[in-house]
């Protein structure tokens, strides 16, 4: 037990409880910022960073090992490229589904059951989600990798 505590952070009950309560709300707010980008301030970049902040809070409260188990690095690496694929794929879909009439990233030709202008708005929303996924994964990965290195080296010094 004592050994586990040493590797998994402070183990403070208040910090753990508060962050366990806060994380869902931070993530919900991040999703709100991404989706709300069309109607007000916000968008993919900002929402992605807020989402990444919730994982950083997890690392601060539970330590790198527990947080890493909750959000494995292998999935994170996949999410890196998933966001860019969504963005570039939407652009390519516009060309393919209009049989070559539309230009790349012309969202008006997506096969959605609304009229031209509204398709552009929905296409923008999908693209913002892609941006959000990439930004979230990259910021989280940078933080995890920096912290991981430091903790593993510190652990070896103790031995």
């Amino acid at each position, binding site marked *: 037990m004592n050994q586990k505590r040493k590797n998994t952070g402070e183990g403070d009950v208040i910090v753990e409880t508060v962050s366990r309560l806060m994380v869902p709300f931070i993530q919900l707010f991040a999703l709100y910022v991404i989706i709300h980008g069309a109607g007000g*301030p916000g968008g993919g970049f900002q929402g992605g960073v807020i989402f990444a902040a919730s994982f950083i809070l997890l690392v601060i409260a539970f330590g790198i090992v527990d947080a890493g188990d909750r959000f494995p690095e292998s999935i994170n690496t996949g999410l890196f490229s998933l*966001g860019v694929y969504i963005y570039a794929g939407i652009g390519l879909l516009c060309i393919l589904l209009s049989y070559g009439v539309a230009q790349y990233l012309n969202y008006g030709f997506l096969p959605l059951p609304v009229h031209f*202008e509204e398709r552009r708005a929905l296409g923008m929303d999908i*693209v*913002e989600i892609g941006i959000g996924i*990439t930004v979230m994964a*990259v910021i989280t990965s*940078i933080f995890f990798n920096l912290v991981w*290195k430091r903790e593993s080296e510190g652990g070896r010094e103790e031995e």
Partner: protein
Amino acid sequence: MKLISVSALLFVILLGALFIYVAADIPDFGDAYSAPNRYILLFSMDAAVELEDDLNQGVIPQRLMDKLEEKELPLPYEAKRGAGVLLFSLREEGIEEVEGSLNKGLFPGALKTEFEKIGVSLSDTVRVMKEEEDNWIIADKEEFIVRKEGDRLTIYDAGWDLMIEKGELYYPDEQKYYFVEKDGDTLNVYRYALIVRYIEEGHHETEVPNMVTYILADYRGYDTLGETTVIFTAGVSVILLLRRRARRPE
């Protein structure tokens, strides 16, 4: 103090001075009607009565066409009377009186004081013409358009919009492209800046109320795709440099 800290301080002061120098030239942020945001001045030419008559009838005068052709610009085919820079708007209680005297062809005194506030002094021989419903023209050395928009009267600089044809320059519809304005004895020809199209048409074209979002994700979609790729590349570089496999602390 060390030499390096002194030089760092000087560098920061230099950067600050440079920033202030650059920022002094930036137009007021968010002011859609400031001249640098709205128009690009192409050239000026001497005004003549027959030019104005042609423009009022919707015909492009040959001299103007020649000049545009000389500069290898796209040629317009129709002129329409259009509103330029927004000068001011009236929304007090007394606008019914102002409207009434405009309808009778008289120049109201309330408008004259408002014009003096922005530094335009009009002579006594001002003519008021009713163009359409809720649309008047005040003609003096310069011309102004008064429009009723909702519960207020808005006064614009008057001019002519020159339209280019459908299909020219990849525009899917006919499009206003030049703006001609009479300024004393000269006729200034402006081109609408691209940002004017974003501001005026973006909301109808994309159904998104937020101007920042539709420019970022739609009109400048390629740019944002590139930005996302830059962030992706940063993440990949961090993985290559920092990730250590199988170094999990036991």
